[in-house]
């Protein structure tokens, strides 16, 4: 198989994301950290485009690189960060231990990620393979997972009875319509629960920001 343009785009965005995230960790000034984090998030948005997730990519750039990073920068603007002392931990045996731990974690994560899917490139499974896998899953599905099995059965029946429809299901894979149908049918309870969570977060952050001078009401402020 040839190297496609998507592969080249992946390598560019992966390099940008890696270098940017290292700079997020090691930049002394938090403002630069936030700019590099915005860069990393934009690069990840580009990777989501490469992965046929156009709507998620747009949401990533609007929500993360837009809203969340603006929130960070705005909060930093009201701080006087010149005074912030001992930001990075000094070098000590504990620091060495931390770096060793993170190195081990990195090795495990990357090793599992590389080995779990085989060392060679694996293209997405095609339709016939997918169908056989689904039928196999259907026959071995435990009885407790009734809804999953029924979903699978419905999809398999749809594919087997109408091959054109089955092809369409996977052809329009990147479609936002499919995403929204699932979000508002199968995941509607989680969606509503998240809206309650957002309300709680709004009330909580307003209450925290309103309280004057932290939480020490009886104490005097150190000068």
């Amino acid at each position, binding site marked *: 198989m040839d190297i496609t343009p998507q592969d080249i785009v992946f390598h560019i965005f992966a390099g940008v994301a890696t270098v940017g995230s290292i700079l997020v960790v090691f930049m002394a000034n938090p403002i630069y950290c936030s700019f590099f984090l915005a860069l990393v998030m934009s690069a990840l948005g580009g990777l989501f485009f490469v*992965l046929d997730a156009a709507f998620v990519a747009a949401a990533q750039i609007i929500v993360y690189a837009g809203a969340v990073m603006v929130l960070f920068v705005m909060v930093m603007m009201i701080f006087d960060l010149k005074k912030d002392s001992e930001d990075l931990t000094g070098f000590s045996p504990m620091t060495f231990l931390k770096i060793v731990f993170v190195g081990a974690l990195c090795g495990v994560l990357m090793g599992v990620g590389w080995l779990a899917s085989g060392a060679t490139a694996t293209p997405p499974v095609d339709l016939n393979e*997918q169908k056989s896998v689904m039928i196999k899953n259907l026959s071995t599905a435990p009885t407790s997972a009734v809804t999953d099995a029924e979903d699978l059965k419905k999809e398999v029946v749809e594919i087997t009875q109408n091959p054109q429809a089955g092809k369409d299901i*996977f052809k329009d894979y990147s479609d936002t319509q499919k995403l929204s149908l699932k979000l508002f049918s199968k995941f509607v309870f989680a969606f509503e629960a998240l809206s309650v969570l957002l309300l709680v977060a709004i009330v909580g952050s307003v209450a925290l920001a309103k309280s004057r*001078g932290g939480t020490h009401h009886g104490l005097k402020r150190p000068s």
Partner: protein
Amino acid sequence: MGSSVLHNFLKVGLNHYLLLSGLLFSIGVLGLLLRRNAIVILMCIELMLNAVNLTFVAFAKYGQNIDGQIMVFFVMTIAAAEASVGLAIAVAVFKRFKEVNISHFENLKG
């Protein structure tokens, strides 16, 4: 043989995305452990959540199941809520101590 290995590395598959995501997550953990500025720590948490999002989307594509992309929306929402509450706490700490160093957090009681 050597060019075949290089070709395998350049030809992007699911394992490349998992590799990148593991690397970004580890860098986020490193920042979480090494930095003492509360805002930069929040940023590192965002970085880790983003690495997880990349895994979700990669599996959504290579497993042909769109549920992974929906999980990404949930993670994004929770990350936004967490950032707003965390920054409110940082503002409260800054008002009190004129610094956002996490060594001050141990003095927050009640």
